[in-house]
């Protein structure tokens, strides 16, 4: 039955298109590589992420721990989820850590936590977006979804200028490991009621970005 549907649909397509198929050249003369220098890209990322009402904490690469501590203190967060490979050097003292990895946290445990701390795969300056690909320091997707607060550490070297630069880097994660990829631009939001943007419907209502530069 199912394969009959497959053959029917393919046959309908072939007869709809006929024997003379159009050959289409795709003009790719849009901007791929950003013309800005690295510092300007990092500035633009910080600016645009903040415009989405994410809070951006700037710090030196050696001060990530203090910046994470400050971001958590802002929300009085004490019980934090983390992927179990999150570096010890990023973890502030005095926090109860719920590590996910070797032991899998249940959705209820994630839901009941105060927040989550992760790294990211890369960040996009033009759109103020952070991108997770389930790689190092990021854990699985549910970790950054159920907790109400997401603290994400971005190292300035991870910032790319444009969307095409980001997609070209991510192609490898998708092609080799079939890893899931999530683009995050500000906290969860809706504009469904009279087009008023409201932060936080189902995802984290607060997004804190720790942006660490050399």
């Amino acid at each position, binding site marked *: 039955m*199912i394969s009959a*549907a*497959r053959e*029917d*649909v*393919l046959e*309908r*397509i*072939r*007869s*709809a*298109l006929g024997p003379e*198929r*159009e050959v*289409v050249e*795709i*003009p*790719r003369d*849009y*901007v791929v590589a950003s013309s800005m220098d690295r510092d300007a890209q990092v500035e633009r990322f910080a600016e*645009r992420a903040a415009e989405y009402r994410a809070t951006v904490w700037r710090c030196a690469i050696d001060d990530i721990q203090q910046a994470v501590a400050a971001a958590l203190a802002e929300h009085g967060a004490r019980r934090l989820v983390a992927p179990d490979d999150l570096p010890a050097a990023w973890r502030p003292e005095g926090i109860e850590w719920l590590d996910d990895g070797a032991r*899998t946290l249940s*959705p*209820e445990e994630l*839901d009941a936590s105060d927040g989550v701390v992760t790294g990211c795969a890369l960040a996009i300056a033009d759109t*103020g*977006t952070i991108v997770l690909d*389930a790689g190092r320091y990021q854990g699985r*997707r*549910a970790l950054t*979804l159920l907790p109400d607060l997401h603290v994400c550490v971005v190292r300035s070297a991870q910032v790319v200028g444009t*969307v*095409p630069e*980001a*997609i*070209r880097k*991510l*192609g490898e994660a*998708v*092609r080799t490991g*079939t890893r*899931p*990829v*999530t*683009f*995050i*631009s500000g906290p*969860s*939001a*809706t*504009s*469904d*009621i*009279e*087009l008023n943007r*409201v932060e*936080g*419907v*189902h*995802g984290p209502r607060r997004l804190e970005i720790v942006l660490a530069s050399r």
Partner: protein
Amino acid sequence: MKGFPQAAREALADSQQRRNVGHATRTIRAKRAAVVGEVPDWEALRAAGEAIKRSAMARLDELLVQLEASVQAAGGTVHWARDGAEANRIVASIVKAHGADEVVKVKSMATDEIELNEALAAEGITAHETDLAELIVQLGDDEQSHILVPAIHRNRAEIRELFRRTLQDTEDLTDEPAELAEAARRHLRRHFLAARVGISGANFAVADTGTICVVESEGNGRMCTTLPDVLVTVMGIEKVLPTFEDLEVMLQLLPRSSTGERMNPYTSLWTGTTDGDGPREFHLVLLDGGRTDVLADPTGRAALHCIRCSACLNVCPVYERTGGHAYESVYPGPIGAILTPQLHGLREGRTLPWASSLCGACYEACPVKIDIPSILVHLRGRVVRDAAERGGLRERLSGERLTMEALARVFASRRRYEAAQKAGRAGQWPLARSGRIEHAPGPLHAWTAFRDLRPMPRQAFRDWWRTRGS
């Protein structure tokens, strides 16, 4: 079905809805203009987007077979459905095979089109819509009126009343949007945590990697595609893109055209299944549902390029006044006017190709450059010819038809054309007052009911050309 003229008349009488829709479309138009204006290569992106979709349609059979192989290689299962009923049966059987009687669903035009929720309900399965606007529509037993913001026709006071009536613990609810969203968050979270099957649509599906892409704002899409054990994605076959790199174009065009944001809050990309992360089972249902009929019309097939951004709705002077319900279709606005009649083989939405002033604003706003006005004109011709073929004697002898046939004869021959000009000049003088014809005779009075005609000049261009000397 009332047809657009009657439905539009009724919609125009609802002044509250007109205010809501007018406010909403003006707001999104301004946001879109600002974020499109800051992209220096916007026209290059549009050209690339158009070519990517056109190339995908020209190779649709090959790409779907490639997509199927990629998804299977990544651990997913692919199903093919000739029509909505077949797709609904496939989804229901997957849900039942897992012993579930509830599913969580993220907003999807394709599943609205095939009325999946109703089909599941008939099998004893409850589908919970999780998009805030879809929840508002579902709780109110209402119809959606916009592709992007389906509850655009409801204001906050109406939504508060609805939530108070239908959700628990909402006695103290105010009409603050943040509070209303919080009520929806509490209501839906327990469904997300309990659901075993999630259902989604797809914005894009990449043939060479098998990656599915869902673009959203609220996080309900991430919930539905991440938390349940089983994920079923229903997508129209036209959503396929050739390569992963094509996303670099689409993910710039779609959010800026749609919500007027540089990037929407969440974009999820997944490829089959991943051990220890997300659903253990992934099913992809490829839906034809009339799309191959659209593909068979070389002029009309560009309607399949649509990426469902809804920019054409927001710029349309007709949509802005009537709202979405007047289109009596899942797809309203200019794109609905070309998609709906084609998807249903001209059996539905026959009046929609006329629901336009052909001003062309939709074409300019379209991120993949669909020439909607030309397709509207083309479909008007198809509907008229179809009516003549199917209709009886009355259809063939209609006044408009006979007039057009007579005009076609006149315009086809120089001799007849010039004779008609001469007759017209002689006959018009009793009608032309102060250089205008305000009341034309016979069936032509419908034209002059709303506008004046200019009389024919004393000397036509042809006469002047002959006498101009050499």
